[in-house]
């Protein structure tokens, strides 16, 4: 019984983990149609922000929850102004440009901090006991933060003026512009928000996975698979795809082994996209965000 409780927690964590690494990409790729191959590097930069600021004496909670999204959000704004804004509507070109950006970021961080893992920070919450099993308390915290983050993204898109303008701009930039919306600014802010969410995720994951310049590569494929499987409605798409793929991965990892777990995730995604080429939200949750 304890085992099932511990395992259920692992499944929920596996799902939350996917949501966390995909949400920033869902905003930038799912909503703005910018194929952001530097998404993994945004996560990596969030991690480095936490490591550097905690080494400088900043409280780890402030570093993770405030500094990481702030710093990466600003980097996102700069990137949007200098590069992305010339490429809207040209998806393949955004792919090439952000690929180059990811290589530059990896090279830059390697040059400054070296190729090695750059952290000695540990999860700031200890273990919790579930009957005869122990589990990481920090994982439970991550599950809670992911839930709050999803609610916050929903609230911003659904109930704020910025959310309305952003959704309108992404659906029809010319009409929005004709109605007096400063679409350039909306694009910049949305991209910055997507980057900030990625930075927050990277910062939160740093104590569990560590940070090294090339860590982005371990996230990028899964993030894209999740967002594409989710489909057009970014939030419900990301959540439903994460729920499906994350559970498959965790259960198979437990029953067989991690190799089959990873393969299983991909097989399910392939079958899903064969049956629903536009992702889960093309059939289900169609009117949702």
């Amino acid at each position, binding site marked *: 019984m304890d*085992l099932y409780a*511990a*395992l259920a927690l*692992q499944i929920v*964590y*596996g799902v939350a*983990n996917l949501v966390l690494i995909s949400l920033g990409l869902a905003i930038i790729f799912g909503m703005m149609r910018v194929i952001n191959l530097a998404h993994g590097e945004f996560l990596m930069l969030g991690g480095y922000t936490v490591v550097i600021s905690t080494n400088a004496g900043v409280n780890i909670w402030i570093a993770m929850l405030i500094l990481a999204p702030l710093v990466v959000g600003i980097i996102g704004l700069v990137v949007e102004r200098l590069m992305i804004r010339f490429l809207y509507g040209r998806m393949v070109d955004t792919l090439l440009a952000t690929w180059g950006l990811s290589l530059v970021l990896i090279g830059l961080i390697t040059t400054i901090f070296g*190729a*090695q*893992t*750059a*952290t*000695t*920070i*540990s*999860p700031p*919450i*200890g*273990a*919790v*006991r579930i009957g*005869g*099993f*122990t*589990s*990481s*308390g*920090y*994982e439970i915290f991550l599950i809670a933060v992911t839930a709050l983050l999803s609610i916050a993204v929903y609230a911003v898109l659904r109930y704020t003026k910025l959310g309305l303008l952003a959704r309108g701009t992404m659906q029809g930039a010319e009409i929005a512009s004709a109605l007096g919306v400063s679409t350039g600014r909306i694009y910049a802010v949305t991209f910055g928000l997507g980057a900030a969410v990625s930075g927050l995720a990277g910062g939160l994951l740093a*104590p*569990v*996975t*560590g940070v*090294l310049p*090339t*860590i982005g*590569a*371990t996230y990028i494929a899964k993030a894209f698979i999740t967002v594409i499987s989710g489909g057009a409605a970014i939030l419900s798409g990301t959540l439903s795809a994460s729920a499906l793929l994350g559970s498959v991965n*965790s259960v198979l*990892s*437990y029953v067989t*082994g*991690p*190799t089959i*777990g*990873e393969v299983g995730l991909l097989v399910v995604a392939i079958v899903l996209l064969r049956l629903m080429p536009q992702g889960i939200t093309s059939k289900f949750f169609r009117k949702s965000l």
Partner: protein
Amino acid sequence: MKATRRTFLKGTAATAAALAAPAIIGRAQAADPIKLVSILDQSGGLDIYGRPMVSASEMAVAEINEAGGLLGRPVELTMYDPQSTIQLYTQYATQAAASDRADVVHAGITSASREAIRPTLNRFNVLYFYNVQYEGGVCDKNTFCTGSTPAHTVEKLVPHVMNKWGKKVYIVAADYNYGQIIADWVQKYVAEQGGETVATEFFPLDVTNFGPTIQKIQAAKPDMVWSALVGGAHISFYRQYAAAGMKGSIPVASTTFGLGNEHQSISAEEGNGMLTSYTYYEEIDTPRNQAFVKRFKDQYGGADAPYLNELAVRSYEGIHLWAEGVKAAGTLDRMAVIEALEGNVTYDGPSGVISIEPTSHHATLNAYIAEVQDQKFNVLEKFPEQKPTDTMQVCNLIENPNQSAFLFENGLEAAGIK
């Protein structure tokens, strides 16, 4: 036949070259350097391993030259950076042999890179040294492997941890050739000691979530976890293991932890108490080693210098051992150097006295067991001059000098060991 201007020019050029040749050769013999080519990744994914090896190689060659060179000639080091790309390894190996006319090549980090260049160097009859810890099993007259193999490390650590912690072992390993073969060796040595392997799990190199496995380990209740995890992503395991409160209840042993400086990447709390085995630790307490460490750190960045792990020191000692072989042979002739190295040549290095075990062409090395303590290693036990008994089971180059194979490529079963 008509003598055109072109054939005439060719003829005179050839004659002139022939006349000048004795002068060139004569002059060359006096100062002509001995050519040592090193091919190691200084960029790309493997550079964290390659860079300290490059520094250590430079230092070894500089020391040989300071002591007057070999056979009265200086040693010239040529370095190539294959950028963690296998194609470049083959390209540079060909260049080293065919155009640089290397007298010896010290090269390769992964088994894949070694297997890419070994046939090339054999074809050109160029002596080859591979100075990296690996899974064992190379059997080749032209190749010397000075790195440690499972017999040096796994075989020593298994009885030690089983005496200390118990008989039930849970193995987690990286899912590629090295991890699979090391897991085989761990199982074999555990069985020989009367122990039991309760489970073996393999992880793709980019897996970062170890949660389900940590629950599984708790359900299986082993006496210890044996980790053969490799690379940056896998460091997550040690963090998550500690975060789940497992450190106190089920201890961890490993012969890969530390090679990527993992002990400095995770906190003291997360690492303390782990047991490891290598053939070298920076902390080895001998005057010879302390002098070596001091010289290396002075030369390469002082306090910022990387932790000196087994990989760097094997490169350093591999080059010195080759130099001792040349001195003993008194010539650079390849077969003479091979025979000298198969004989009584030894080198007293920072890790202890090393030599070549003649039937396998692998090194006889001191092995050590150390405990991780506050991001350093605390050396507990020493096993002097251990032979590469794993590879010796399948390889005999004295009786069968034409063997040229990587016998564990398809696992121990294929090599007839399991």
